[in-house]
């Protein structure tokens, strides 16, 4: 086989519900949803070279779309999930257009600031419970069928979404668009003089990444059965950034591994001590300082994740 690793990984993920413990099924559902979120960020970060510290805005926008539509009695996944993707994309358009006027450090701060504004907006959204957030009565349905309420069924839906996102993004980064984006990351001025308009390509990449994050948001709202401003909190943006770096940016498998590693580490550490963050914080610094290429570089036969993108 040409690509044994992704097939192996997705195959192993299919085995998780067979263990029969709801806890693990739900944990890995959450991991896969965060993997989708992390892939979407990597599309911008690893391939597009845009360091966004506000990606949670789109994750949260997807989740809140599920919440708000459920208030109005819309529960069909076939309407709600595309709507979540659309809302995230529509939000990303002005935010991206304004943020991309800047670059480097300004871009990081601006995306963070915009995400924070969205956070405060959700915070003040009284119809969705304000700072407490709101519970969802049930998961979304598919054409009147309420089968998604079962954790195993939902697990497979999330698995399918992750696979679709993975394959779709692989297509995208291998396409002409993907090469142009990569070229812009390496040398924007040169791509400009070759006749490409960098702004349009970067904005498109930004919006695509946001839409996928919106899908992840819709999935997490359905998994957790609640929506709260914590989905939009800036630590959420930080966390997903960590997943991408931990796994290896500029690859598509890396973010999946990163999401898995980070969430499992949190799960294990928090079973030892409630102060697990005191361990996580410094380990993060150590990873950044000494292990930049990510987990994916440890796998045999992989081309190394790029460390140059920034």
């Amino acid at each position: 086989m040409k690509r044994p690793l992704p097939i192996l990984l997705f195959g192993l993920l299919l085995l998780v519900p067979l263990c029969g413990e709801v806890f693990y099924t739900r944990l890995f559902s959450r991991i896969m949803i965060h993997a989708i979120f992390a892939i979407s960020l990597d599309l911008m970060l690893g391939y597009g070279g845009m360091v966004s510290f506000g990606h949670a805005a789109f994750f949260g926008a997807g989740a809140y779309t599920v919440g708000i539509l459920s208030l109005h009695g819309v529960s069909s996944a076939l309407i709600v999930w595309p709507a979540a993707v659309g809302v995230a994309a529509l939000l990303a358009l002005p935010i991206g257009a304004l943020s991309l006027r800047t670059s480097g450090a300004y871009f990081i701060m601006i995306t963070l600031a915009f995400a924070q504004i969205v956070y405060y907006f959700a915070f003040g959204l009284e119809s969705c419970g304000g700072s407490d957030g709101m519970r969802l009565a049930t998961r979304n349905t598919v054409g009147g069928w309420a089968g998604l309420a079962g954790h195993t069924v939902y697990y497979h839906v999330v698995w399918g979404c992750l696979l679709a996102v993975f394959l779709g993004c692989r297509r995208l980064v291998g396409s002409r668009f993907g090469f142009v984006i990569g070229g812009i990351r390496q040398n924007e001025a040169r791509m400009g003089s070759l006749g490409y308009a960098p702004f349009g390509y970067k904005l498109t990449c930004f919006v695509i990444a946001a839409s996928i994050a919106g899908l992840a948001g819709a999935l997490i709202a359905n998994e957790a059965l609640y929506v709260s401003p914590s989905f939009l909190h800036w630590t959420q943006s930080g966390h997903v950034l960590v997943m991408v770096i931990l796994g290896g940016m500029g690859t598509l498998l890396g973010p999946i591994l990163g999401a898995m590693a980070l969430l499992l580490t949190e799960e294990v550490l928090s079973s030892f001590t409630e102060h697990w963050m005191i361990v996580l914080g410094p380990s993060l610094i150590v990873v950044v300082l000494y292990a930049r290429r990510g987990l994916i570089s440890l796998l045999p036969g992989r081309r190394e994740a790029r460390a140059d993108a920034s």
Partner: protein
Amino acid sequence: MDATLLLMQGLNGLQLGVMLFLMAAGLTLVFGVMNLINLSHGSLYMMGAYLAASLQQQTGSFLWAILLAVPATLAVGMVVEVVTLRKLYDRDHLDQVLATYGLILFFNELVRMVWGPQARFMALPEALSHSVVLFPGMRYPAYRLVIIGVGLGVGGLLFWLIHHTRLGMLIRAGASNREMVNALGVNIKVLYTVVFGLGAALAGLAGMMAGPILSIEVGMGEPVLILAFIVVVIGGIGSIKGAFVAAVLVGLVDTFGRVLLPAGVSSMSICILMAGMLCWRPKGLFPAHG
């Protein structure tokens, strides 16, 4: 709205502005000189507030608490710089963001372990807890006037330090060409540690002055950090003058936004200000580096 209320809100805005300036000054200095994005600046603000609250409990004096907590935060900042941040100056911004994010997680948890999860409050000394009559019909809390005074004083001192002293000259020189300064025999490592400590002390000062007004809790620095980022972006990265103008602007817009605009829109007023500024001047009001 009558003139008294307008003036009152103007003073409130100015007070928020000078607090933001103390935060943003350190942020913009560290960025301008060391080219380092420091997300953990808010943690230093938090440390300042907690240290001052503890010292006030120990010494029983507000003034002593402030006088001791400022050098303490300065020391914390220097230790952080020597232990971790020093290795990050040559890295790209992404690494800096991630490592300083790790520092935030660390400091938040540290504070939770040492001081517990409950919010704390600092009592004001008798002399400052009343309000003064500015002119007939208008009273204003004395402590807020003190904040404005201290903020403006520190701002002036900082301006003098940067533009009229040898240290300031080295800081400015380090910002434009660090190799050259190093080659001329200045110990750039020590200079960086001093600059970082200075920024930390300013953040800590802002935190401890906010102590009696706001509650002291885990994560208290983060909303302020975000506002300070907006200030730095509007003012132009690396510019103290820009940081001051932008901080007062943001303080006033935020305060008047809350008074004049409906609740939902008011939280966006800063965003609109920033978006407008980005369209008009993407590099900020007073860009320090071309």
